[in-house]
């Protein structure tokens, strides 16, 4: 424990990102699902556009099923959770069997939700498991550096989604500062230029909104250091 | 007795940069009963050597690495060896355990139909011993460079009827083993300029005897021995791996001179 290779740092970072992607998209999914009941049947189209995934669904019924559970849809919640699992399973010794178990439980739960008569109960459980996962990370992952790398992934992903989903600039600023706080504690290679750009745009508050595309691009390139 | 000065140069050129290059060279002359190494020096560019050890067959391996980006690797070995002719007279006739591995067929020497047929003909003709088998092989097999490759088996080469020293040596090894003699593959150098040579050693009457089927003669004091093994695979002069997707070219230059000791 506590000795991390490039490959393992990568797994920790992406585990953080994918877990967070599942969490925030599931929470958002509920909002859009609510609107689709009687406000806007086609809200899912807006949703796809916002988070920049192709709308391959065609109807809200298909969307509700495929976007959540389809193993062959690379953008589905299931696919993202499976990627989180793929990064977690190889890190059992670092994150502990207890922590890994919550990813396993979330995955099994999402899988059974597909055939469930009360999927929303199961989906809530997926969210609960993710909360438990992060709680377990704090208690069971002994190496501070490993925890911080995971959280770098988590907060950068959250920042990305908040920018896309149009969260209030105060919330965006808060997540960005959490990210920077973790970044300072690890020795990951990153682009100072991208950091400066993000700091500038997010520092503008609501005034920076017009430059969010640029900010998303900076997130994309943040750790892409050659 | 003979004194031989030799130079072995090998250059690998890559068409783009490679890194993390690890290599193993088996091209340092062995100390044997018939061969003493008087002096030996070698250089590797752009890296130094890391170490040396003896492999499971008793061959000297030079271990090296070039981790930083590079687009060539050059090895130069210079030395002098003192050789003497093999003894003719027989010794106590027992086969040590270590020889027994050379009685079993290996990947490149596994006999098939052609080898069985050839051996059967030798038997019918009452050819006595490996020398006679070698003479017959020399007559019936043609030296044609480019007709085979390093992975060609003895059986395939014999079926094609032509090949190079590797094929001659491996066919003779297979035939010796069929006749019940432990036999092994030898890589070494011959006087003049050119490439490495390969021949056969077989165990008889308590000692190893070198036979060169490509030239149809015994391996005498003009032969410098570098390595031996079950077949070509065990004696590969260089093996390496690196990171990078570069094409590579290999250039080898060898020169051996006999010193006039009279």
């Amino acid at each position, binding site marked *: 424990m506590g000795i991390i*290779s490039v490959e393992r740092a990568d797994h920790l970072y992406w585990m953080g990102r994918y877990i967070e992607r599942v969490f925030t998209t599931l929470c958002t999914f509920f909002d859009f699902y609510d609107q689709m009941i009687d406000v806007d049947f086609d809200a899912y189209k807006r949703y796809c556009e916002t988070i920049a995934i192709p709308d391959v669904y065609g109807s809200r019924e298909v969307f509700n099923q495929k976007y959540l559970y389809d193993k062959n849809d690379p953008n589905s919640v299931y696919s993202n959770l499976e990627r989180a699992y793929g990064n977690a399973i190889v890190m059992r010794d670092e994150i502990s069997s207890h922590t890994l178990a919550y990813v396993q439980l979330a995955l099994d739960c999402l899988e059974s939700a597909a055939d469930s008569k009360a999927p929303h109960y199961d989906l809530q459980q997926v969210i609960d498991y993710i909360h438990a996962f992060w709680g377990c990370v704090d208690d069971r992952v002994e190496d501070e550096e490993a925890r911080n790398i995971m959280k770098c992934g988590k907060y950068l992903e959250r920042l990305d989604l908040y920018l896309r989903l149009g969260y209030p600039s105060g919330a965006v600023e808060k997540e960005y500062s959490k990210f920077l706080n973790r970044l300072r504690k690890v020795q990951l290679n990153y682009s100072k230029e991208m950091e400066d750009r993000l700091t500038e745009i997010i520092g503008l508050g609501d005034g920076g909104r017009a430059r969010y595309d640029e900010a998303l691009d900076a997130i994309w390139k943040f750790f892409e250091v050659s | 007795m003979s004194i031989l000065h030799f130079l072995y140069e090998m250059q690998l050129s890559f068409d783009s940069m490679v890194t993390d290059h690890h290599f193993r060279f088996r091209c340092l002359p062995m100390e044997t009963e018939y061969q003493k190494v008087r002096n030996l020096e070698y250089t590797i560019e752009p890296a130094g050597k890391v170490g040396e050890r003896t492999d499971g067959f008793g061959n000297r391996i030079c271990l090296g690495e070039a981790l930083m980006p590079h687009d060539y690797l050059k090895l130069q070995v210079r030395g002098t060896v003192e050789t003497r002719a093999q003894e003719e007279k027989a010794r106590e006739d027992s086969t040590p355990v270590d020889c027994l591995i050379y009685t079993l067929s290996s990947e490149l020497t596994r006999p098939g139909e052609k080898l069985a047929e050839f051996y059967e003909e030798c038997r019918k003709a009452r050819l006595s011993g490996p020398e006679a088998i070698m003479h017959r092989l020399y007559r019936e097999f043609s030296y044609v460079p480019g007709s085979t490759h390093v992975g060609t088996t003895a059986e395939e080469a014999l079926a094609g009827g032509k090949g190079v020293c590797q094929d001659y040596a491996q066919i003779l090894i297979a035939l010796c083993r069929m006749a019940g003699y432990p036999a092994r593959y030898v890589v070494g150098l011959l006087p003049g300029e050119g490439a490495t040579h390969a021949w056969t050693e077989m165990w008889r009457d308590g000692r190893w005897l070198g036979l060169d089927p490509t030239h149809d003669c015994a391996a005498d004091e003009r032969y410098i021995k570098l390595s031996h093994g079950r077949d070509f695979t065990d004696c590969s002069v260089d093996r390496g791996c690196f990171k990078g997707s570069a094409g590579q070219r290999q250039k080898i230059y060898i020169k051996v001179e006999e010193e006039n000791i009279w």
Partner: protein
Amino acid sequence: MILDLVDHKESINRLLARYGVKFGIYKNNQFHEQLFPFDPIPRIISREEYEYLDRGLSQRVLALNAFLKDVYSEKKIVKDGVIPADFIFSSKGYLPQCEGICPPKGIYSHISGIDLVQGKDGCWYILEDNLRIPSGASYPMIARDLTRRAAPEAFVRNHVADNRNYAVMLKETMDYVNTGGINVVLTPGRYNAAFFEHSYLAERSGAILCMPRDLFVEDNKLFYRRYEGRKQQVGAVYRRLSDEYLDPLCFLPESLIGVPGIMDVYACGNVAVINAPGNGVADDKGIYYFVPHMIKYYLNEEPILRNAPTYLAFYEKDRKFILEYLSRLVVKDVSEAGGYGVVFGSNLTREQLKALADVIENEPRRFIAQEVIDFIDLDIVEDGGPVPRKADLRAFVLAGETARVWPSGLTRFSRNPDSFVVNSSQGGGFKDTWVLSR
């Protein structure tokens, strides 16, 4: 008390699923992970019986280690005519690349998995030695963790030796041969059948789980590359990939999962490799026949544990016996691994028996034949109640300063009532193995 456990069969299996206790199999070239079904009724081994097995198995592993050391150096056992040279040099597991290499502290088989069965006569028979990368210890280890939680009363009343010390034993085994540096578990990757075990043992023993790309050789030493660029020397590698893939410079040049140069680092004594490359020569089905002879030869002791009665077609006397009694024997091809190349004479037609006899006569070196052992059944829980199944035991022997038998083991049972095959890939399951401490 054990009934407590029976009631918890479902819940324990659910917990095993939660912790990802699975093994992988390839079906039509696709990787699938499967749960390894757990049966709650333990195999119980009394203290006396364990002490007997401990003596017998330790003795066997000491002799096998002495054999490996001898084979890769002086070969006295061959010179003295105890084992024919042919059985060593033509074994697929014999690696001439390992000639002359003496591993740290002279230990070759650090972790040995010895498969045994108990006959209806109560006698234990050795079926097979696994000295390369035996797997399976992790399953009873984690199952114990969960069964103790599920049915504590069963453990209050039955004094069962705690088997979760396997992690400590493993760490001690690694530390003992460590040449200076960290311990790592080297896995070929998550799509390996035993990946759960690799990751679990790394977690429990405090070793770093690493993929081949995390390791590199420099200056004839082995290092682990840290993400921020520093390097950390590795002193012991518990590698879970097989010999031929270990080092592309020494074995298969096309291996992409090996660590280039690791064999030379090992040969020069700069890292311990667990288990030693080349061990396959000692767990070959042909060599199995000679293990009792090895015990006498190296240790000057009588073998404590028996082999299943085995005949070697190579010897004329044995061959005659095999050909005469072929229909009641089980014939094994020594060049095949695992359950392949195993034929029960009783399942063959007259023509098939004749064909098999011909093959044996033509290639006697290739075959051994054994008496079929009628081994005892163990009960497993099915829907209605207990039903009997064939079961074997894989005992784990760890060799450091001495050889020690882990007070537990993997008990595997067959899925079908009439099957003798206990292999997990054939759908069987596993049980915990209790060694009573008083």
